[in-house]
């Protein structure tokens, strides 16, 4: 089991009001799953992503990532987990604008303390995997949106993480680029990568295998996508 949440609660304490963003969530995600997390804005899906990505700390409950109890770790250990176990793909790509594609992909390996030569080799390999071998030395502003997102995926992949967390990865892309990105995720998943993707678009969610829908900090549905399609309820 890659992810196991037990009774997870997240409260935002703004002083005057205590906002309960996640209310007693229990959730398990197995290895090689491909999960969509859906819900309206404010439903708690982004909060969950931040916690899954070890960017935010939970208020109550337990979070096991790859059998490790993450809730008790300090900042440095969390940084190491983010570095080695998690690959982020963001809606806004979040590449460093002054670095070339390959340098962006090398970045996580640099923080992992991998030698320059190995970094270069593995970055090239990852960029090849997302079909960008010919754009390695371009800077983000010389790349299209789809290409940027592919660089971001290569960066997420390069440290061989246990899980890829994608937050609205196609939100800033046109439909053909979106399709490209979904193809890449599809093949990565087929190769055995676990993917958790936040989206509010049902047609994007259709590419996944399991869809979890959030509302007001609760999980309101958790279905196998194929079943839904078969049952004719295409609208998630």
């Amino acid at each position, binding site marked *: 089991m890659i992810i196991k949440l037990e009774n997870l609660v997240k409260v935002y304490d703004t002083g005057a009001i205590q906002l309960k963003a996640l209310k007693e969530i229990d959730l398990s995600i197995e290895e090689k799953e491909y999960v969509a997390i859906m819900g309206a804005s404010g439903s708690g899906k982004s909060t969950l992503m931040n916690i899954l990505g070890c*960017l935010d700390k939970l208020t109550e409950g337990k979070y096991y990532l790859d059998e490790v109890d993450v809730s008790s770790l300090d900042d*440095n250990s969390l940084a190491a987990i983010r570095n080695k176990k998690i690959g982020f793909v963001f809606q806004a790509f979040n590449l460093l604008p002054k670095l070339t594609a390959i340098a962006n992909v090398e970045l996580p390996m*640099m*923080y992992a303390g991998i030698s320059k030569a190995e970094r270069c080799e593995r970055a090239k390999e990852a960029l090849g995997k997302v079909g960008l071998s010919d754009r390695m030395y371009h800077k983000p502003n010389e790349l299209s949106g789809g290409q940027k997102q592919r660089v971001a995926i290569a960066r997420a992949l390069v440290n061989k993480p246990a899980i890829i967390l994608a937050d609205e990865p196609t939100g800033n892309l046109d439909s053909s680029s979106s399709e490209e990105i979904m193809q890449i995720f599809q093949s990565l998943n087929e190769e055995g990568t676990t993917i958790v993707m936040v989206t509010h678009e049902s047609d994007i969610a259709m590419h996944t295998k399991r869809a979890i829908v959030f509302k007001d900090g609760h999980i309101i549905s958790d279905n196998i996508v194929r079943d839904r399609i078969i049952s004719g309820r295409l609208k998630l």
Partner: protein
Amino acid sequence: MNITEGLESAFQSIKSNKLRSFLTMLGIIIGISSVITIVSIGDGAKQYITGQFADIGTHLVNLKMNSASENIEKRDYYTIDDVKLIKDKIPEVAQVIPSLGGIGSLKTENKSKRMYVSATNADAEKVDSVKIIKGRYINDHDVDTKKSVAVIDNKTAIKLFGDVDIVGERVKLNVQDKNIYVGIIGVFENTNDSLGLGDSENMPGSMIIPITIADKILKNTDISILAVMLSDISHADQTSKKIIRLIENKHQNQNSNKYVAEQGFKELDTVNKVLSTLTMILGAIAAISLAVGGIGVMNIMLVSVTERTREIGIRKAIGARTSDIRLQFLMESIILCLIGGAIGTIIGISAGKLLSSIVHVDVPVSIKVILLAFGFSSAVGIFFGLYPASKAAKLDPIEALRYE
């Protein structure tokens, strides 16, 4: 992230903001260059003045009778034998010059001139740096054999003989009630003009006679001062004490405190102290400009941290630790300051050289100054970079990622 990678990323970021980086460095450049210029000029001035003093004899120690001692007797005064004794027994001594003096007059058949008579030995030529224009100075032989010879100045020669080519002439020297005839063996250049006293007819001329004939002509032949030239200045105090002990033994007045040794140029110490203080004060003022430069660095680093909040968020999301971010920003401010420091050093040295060519004082480029500059600029980089770097390192990754 290790140091090399930190350096790379620092250079990257400095390069991508060239104008801003340069303007930030400018404060450091001005600070470091002014510190270096001032310190170099201070050093140069010190060396120059020390050199000037060396020319006129920093190695000089004057042995005098202690004026505070009340019961100085005739037998306590220095003698010509003491001169020999000191030279023989104390190896650090190069020359010993006794001196006696008196006012008298020099007469030819029909002319006369008032003279200042100094009785000394051959060593005095080197110390007094007289310029002989005819004949020679008195030598050891003249002294040892008590020859009645004299060296006179050129103005006296012209006054009495109308010419300087008078070696071999005999003249009558009169001091109070004593008279002797002396043979002129040399003429030296009168440098009284350099004292600004003018060229008055009434100014006495000057002549030098061997000290061994002083008893024939001078009234007071008690030698109360010996000028001692040391070959090595470094232990001047110890050497002076050795000489005094030697003299005391000779005159059998041990620990009588009748003799004192005065370092010829105590003024040098004073001048050096004043210069050091001056350099320090000016250096401190320059250091203030360095501190202002440092504040500029801090300011820009803070702006840079704010601007790059998102970058920091991204780096944290992909695994940068707090310490990695801190190192990255600290490196940036250190590199900024070091580059500024290097440019400032070059400008400072050039400014020093330029000034030295204008005032003709050699300004040395000391390793000390360069190390000082690098030490200072990295210290400024660390000191003023630490706060922005910690601020960057402490950013919350979620907040930082959301930052537009």
